Structure formats: structure tokens, C-alpha cells
């Protein structure tokens, strides 16, 4: 399939976009397979995730860093942009009608938003018991366990869970009467990538545990590389802004509130 190229210029090797201070940027971090991670992503910073192995999944929660009562709302995101999945150049919207981030590019045309993430009980039932004593850092931790850990570190908890954006995963609804769901194996390969541009300061929490519908009989989580860099603010003809009037209004709402 045709890669969707991001439309914002890459930062220079020094990490600074002209006119912007960007101390500490860019930086890269390898996220271990089957683990959880939180990144506080400043406004107009990009998070580019690249698959280091085949079959990756990243279950993502997102919050407004200034007030985590405001969080990603995927039903609102999908219905406003009339999409059953997340793909460039969709705007990820909060429950307060403000843009949290925009998907500015991806080598994939489908990221799941409707099928949630794994729990410990499911992982144990499918792959057997696993603990640190036996398996050390390769122990099988569900996405839920990892995300709850990250939530707690930020003073949040179970009540702050919401539908996860499952980057690199494709689950297709059939056009039949019940809307049967089919997981698409082999959707993401090593080298596939996605880029999110923060439209306000956000907390991004993610788990690289396998998606619960992944039919792979073996537990085979994939590693991701995270690159964080500074990118220009979206201009008047930014693809996310002009995608749909709804996308533009969510961007305008956050810009007005931070003006």
C-alpha cells in the first residue's frame, strides 16, 4: 500500500526547528516488547513510533497533561470524522471537543480504535501463567496491567481507562448484519511507522503487549522505537486541519483555549 507521508518538515539533525528552542530534542527510546511506557509530549512535538519487529501493537491511552480529566474519546473522534479507524490525517479528539493530537503520517492506512486491549486473565488463559520469578523481564504482562501501572504513577486509575487506540492493528468490520469483526494478520511489519503531533501538552501511555485478537499461538510481542522531535505548528492548509470541518474545529478549539 502507498505510504502516507507526513507533511511537516523533519527537524534538523540538531533537533531544533528554526525559531524554536528544543532542548533535549530530538530523542529516541526503544520500547521493549510487551511493556508499558508513558511519554509526556509537549505541544507541537511529534511522537514517531516505528516497529522493530513484525506484528506490533501499541494500545494507547491519551490525556490532556494540564488536566487528565480530559481524555481521548475515540467514539467522538470517529463519528466526527466519519471513520471506523484512525488513519492520517485524522485529529484525535478529547471528550471536551479539543484536539489532543493529529495523526500526521503513517506507512499504514488503518489503526484500530474499536477493540480494546488485553487483560491479565486473558493472557493467562491463552499463554499460561507467567511471573517475574520464572520469566524475568520477559514475563507476560497484559496491556491492562501495564496501563494501570502507568495510570497509577500519574495519580490516575481504573476509572480513567477509555477505549485504546491500537496502533499497528487492523480489525475490519464486515458489511454483514451483525458487523462481524475480522482481525487482519500481518498488518504491521518491521519498519512500519506512525507519527502523532501533539496539539496540546499530552500524556501518552502505551503498552506493547499483543492485541487480544492476534491469533498468533505464541506470545510474540514486538519492540517499538519512539522518536520525539519538534515540529511546526499546523498551518492554515495543514492536512489535518482541512481534512473535514470537524477536524478543523477541534484544532481551532484547542488553539483558542491556549491562545
Amino acid at each position, binding site marked *: 500500500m502507498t505510504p502516507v507521508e507526513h507533511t511537516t518538515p523533519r527537524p534538523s539533525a540538531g533537533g531544533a526547528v528554526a525559531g524554536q528552542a528544543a532542548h533535549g530534542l530530538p530523542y529516541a527510546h526503544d520500547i521493549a516488547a510487551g511493556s508499558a511506557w508513558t511519554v509526556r509530549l509537549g505541544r507541537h512535538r511529534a511522537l514517531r513510533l516505528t516497529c522493530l519487529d513484525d506484528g506490533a501493537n501499541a494500545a494507547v491511552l491519551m490525556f490532556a497533561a494540564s488536566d487528565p*480529566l480530559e481524555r481521548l*474519546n*475515540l*467514539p*467522538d473522534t*470517529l*463519528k*466526527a470524522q*466519519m*471513520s*471506523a*479507524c484512525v*488513519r492520517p490525517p485524522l485529529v484525535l*479528539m478529547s*471528550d*471536551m*471537543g*479539543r484536539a489532543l493530537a493529529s495523526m500526521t503520517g503513517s506507512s499504514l*492506512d*488503518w489503526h484500530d480504535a*474499536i*477493540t*480494546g486491549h488485553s*487483560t491479565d*486473565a*486473558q493472557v493467562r488463559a491463552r499463554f499460561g501463567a507467567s511471573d517475574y520469578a520464572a520469566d524475568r523481564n520477559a514475563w507476560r504482562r497484559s496491556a491492562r496491567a501495564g496501563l494501570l501501572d502507568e495510570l497509577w504513577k500519574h495519580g490516575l*486509575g*481504573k*476509572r*480513567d*481507562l*477509555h*477505549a*485504546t487506540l491500537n496502533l499497528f492493528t487492523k*480489525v*475490519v*468490520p*464486515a*458489511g454483514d*448484519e*451483525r*458487523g*462481524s*469483526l475480522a482481525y487482519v494478520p500481518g498488518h504491521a511489519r518491521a519498519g512500519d511507522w506512525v507519527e502523532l503531533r501533539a496539539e496540546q501538552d499530552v500524556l501518552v501511555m502505551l503498552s506493547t503487549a499483543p492485541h*487480544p*485478537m492476534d491469533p498468533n499461538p505464541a506470545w510474540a510481542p514486538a519492540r517499538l522505537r519512539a522518536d520525539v522531535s519538534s515540529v511546526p505548528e499546523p498551518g492554515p492548509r495543514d492536512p489535518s486541519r482541512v481534512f473535514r*470541518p*470537524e477536524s478543523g*474545529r*477541534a484544532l481551532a*478549539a484547542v488553539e483558542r483555549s491556549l491562545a
Partner: protein
Amino acid sequence: MTLTEADVLVDVTVGAGDGWIGEIPAGARLRVVDLYGNQAVDTLFFDAHDHANRYSAVDTVREQGAVYLTTGSVLLSVDLDPLATIVDDTCGRHDTLGGACAQESNVVRYGEHTRHQHACRTTFVRQAMEWGRGLDKRDLTHNVNFFMNVPLTPEGGLTFEDGVSAAGKHIELRAERDLLVLVSNCPQLNNPCNGYDPTPVRLVGWAR
């Protein structure tokens, strides 16, 4: 079925744009009747004894392997506990991925002129506030939309369409544990989910 007065737990007509909150014990039935047709009924379910163990739309659709809810669908919590089972459905299918309308999402979808129109979240907030017991904004999660038609396509499309419901259609649930049920009878005027004319619905709950 012949019901005696003692069996009836709730029997209310919820006006257009109004709401209801209450507990339904394990084993009891709750029927929602679309009295006039094409009326979306936004509904949240919580374990009555642990509000954090609440309805999860995405876990429900994944575990049943299908997007729409109908007879046989088991509404699951975030812990994958069955909260309720749909035991009867004369409508055919119901949405759970379209979320609830809010003032803020209305502005995104329809423009600033809708900022002060009534919305489902306003009803959820008012009902939750009156109920108290620690409920707050964090508890308002992705809901069920009874009688609402939101087709998803294999190409990735999602639209709000004319309802597939009609006057007198109903859905009936069996509580699989003690439930707190929070209902907003949707006031949306800007899309076909209520046929552009919100109308009353009836809630009837009875002990087994």
C-alpha cells in the same frame, strides 16, 4: 407474562431529553421501549457495588466478535464480567461505538451555534450528580445507544444513519449482577439518530 405490582421495580416514561438513574438487581429484567420510533437511548451500566467495574463498549464488541448489539449480546465490564444480557430485541441491532452527544462534541460536529443545545452528557451529569455516591466525570465512559443505527464499513466508513427502529420496538435486558443503570433519552436535533424529533421512551424493570 402477568406482573403483580410487587414485581415491578421501575415503570417510568422518560421524556425527550430527560434521563433516569437507578439500580436493577441481579436476575431482574429491564425493558426499554421506543414508544414513537427512531429514538436513541444512551445508556451506561455499572456494577452497583463497584462503579469502576463499568460497561466497556470495546471489550463487548471484541469478545462477541461483532460491532452491533442484539439478542444474545452480553454487555461486558472493563474486567470482562457480564453485566447484562440482551434477551429480547424487536428492533434488530443497536450501536455502541457512536458515544454520547455532548455540548463540546456538538460544537466540533455542527458548529459553535450548537454550544448551548441540550446534550446527552448534560443529562448524564445531572443524573449522576443527583445520585451522588462518588460518581463524577471519570465515570462517564463509552455507552450503548439503543435503537441507534451507526453502520461501519469494511473500507473504514462510519456514519449515523436513519434509525432501524420504529414505534413500539423494544429491547429487554437481564441483569447478570446488581447494576446501576444511567440513561439519557437523547435530545440530539442535528442528525438522524432521533429522526430530528426526540420523543419519550418507557423503561420497565421487574424482578424475575
